[in-house]
């Protein structure tokens, strides 16, 4: 419930006589659209003809298709903690965990499915991951012929990692840069200072 004291009452601005008629605004708008019309008629429209033409641009903080990172030994980095599945507002992550076959790890995912059609690409999974295993890449051209095809399994997500290894997705530093993650430049120094204090 919102408290009454939190409600801000705003007076509507008074309209002038000409504004009240709306006619100038209408003509203004008409002018804008006709200008664009002729510009596009004579010149080239702004849009490009995808997929024949693709713009050369790197959208670093674009949140596109997920990838599942590998650790130094090439194994899936995920520890099957279900944090991403828990954080996911669209319920599109399905994980099945099991005891890992490796000596240095407790748990690993036997299944890791993301329904890319359900996903809303909010990046919460990325934020929730305690081991930075799941990341959203800038990959945006995601197509498939069936719904089933758009449910990416572990192998597919790892394959995306293999393809996009060199890209370091830029996460929003304002979100991920909380002390302790060390993601942010200078974060570790701050940590040290804190200790000394």
């Amino acid at each position, binding site marked *: *419930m*919102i408290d*009454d004291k*939190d*409600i*801000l*009452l*705003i007076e*509507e601005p008074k*309209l002038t*006589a*000409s504004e*009240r*008629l709306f006619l100038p605004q*209408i003509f203004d*708008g*008409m002018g*804008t*659209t*006709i200008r*664009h*019309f*002729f*510009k*596009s*008629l004579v010149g080239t*429209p*702004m*849009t490009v*003809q995808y997929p024949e033409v693709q713009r050369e641009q790197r959208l670093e903080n674009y949140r596109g298709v997920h990838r599942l990172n590998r650790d130094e030994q090439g194994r899936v980095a995920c520890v099957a903690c279900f944090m991403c599945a828990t954080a996911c507002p669209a319920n599109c992550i399905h994980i099945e965990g099991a005891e890992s076959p490796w000596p240095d790890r407790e748990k690993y995912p036997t299944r890791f499915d993301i329904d890319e059609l359900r996903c809303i690409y909010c990046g919460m999974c990325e934020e929730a991951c305690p081991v930075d295993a799941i990341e959203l890449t800038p990959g945006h051209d995601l197509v498939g012929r069936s719904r089933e095809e758009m449910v990416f399994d572990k192998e597919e997500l790892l394959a995306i990692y293999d393809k996009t290894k060199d890209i370091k997705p830029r996460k929003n530093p304002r979100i991920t840069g909380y002390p302790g993650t060390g993601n942010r430049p200078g974060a570790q120094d701050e940590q040290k200072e804190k200790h000394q204090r």
Partner: protein
Amino acid sequence: MAEFFTSQLGVSVGLAVFALLVLLGAVSYCIYFERKISAFVQDRYGPNRVGPFGIFQPVADGGKFVFKEDVIPGHVDKPLFLLAPCITFLVGFIVFAAIPWGGQWSLGGRLIEVQVANPDIGLLYILGVASVGVYGVILGSWASNNKYSFYGGMRAAAQMLSYEIPMGICILVVVITMGSLRLEEITVAQTDYWLGFIPQWNIFRYPLAFVILFVTVLAECNRTPFDVVEAEQELVGGFHTEYGALKFGMFFLAEYAHMITSSALIAVLFLGGWHFPWIPWTQLEATSWFAVLLKILVICGKISFFIFVMMWIRWTLPRFRFDQLMRLAWKGLIPITLSLFVLAVVLLYFGVERSFWYPLIGNVLVLAVALFFAARSRREVTGRQRGMPAVGGGSAGRTVSMGIPG
């Protein structure tokens, strides 16, 4: 046999068949242009995959409409459901009968009207037939047995009713001035000149009536900003929610046919129909086949212009809320057109109805008064009611009225 083809009847029949075919094509291409124009306005390409510049897109669309599965939902009133698009479609096309396309054509020594029919009550015919169009919409919405569709139909009925009044009065102004209901005569009466060079088109006499007629025509055609009938965001398509395939195509085509006829009507009533000033071939006296062809081109050009403006408006202005739409009709347009009607009658009484200055001055006066009142009006201009908080809004007892009047 040749006798027939040169007779008025033969020309009428030929014209009817020809016009129907051309019109169907024209309507299809209207859709094409609509898409193209919207694309250009929005800096896009528009359809460009089927043929050069996508000019075969209407063919593809038409093919799709025809060959799509014809679904009739189980819950509809089947006969009415089928009837509705037919009515709309039919009405959209038969209005053309009374449009004068090219004045007179001397064919085989006789002067033949290039018009399917030239009844004495041409205007009444158009008005009458056109208002049947709304039956299609209402029937469709009723038959769909779906509350969104029904809302659409109700809105359509209320809107048609409201906007036919200012439209009719506007036409009445012209009729009083011209003294005839025959469209051909109205056209011919506009072919003179004032001061030797200003064509005596009604637009110069009654510019206000012209604008209002154009606005009401937009509303009658359910074009933006008056397309509350099929408002996708609120009504999921309104009356045609349940329609698909060819039946939807018929609604679709009828809308554009309606646009063409309405444009033609405005052209005839206010822009002198096939008349184009100063070019001899388009004057009343020119009756050769070439002149007729030219006249047809002239009126088509005028129609095209109006259609373009309609599309232009559609891709510029947002939709009215239903109460705003109603207010515009009843509180704005009807008083103004009534004033114009009084003006026309007074001018008629003094016998100066066909002069240039008196009507124009009268128009300006009416406009001035109208603007004065409009600017002084204290009505709310936003959707919010007075006293409603702008943020939050959890307070009890206050509701926001939705678009439906009442």
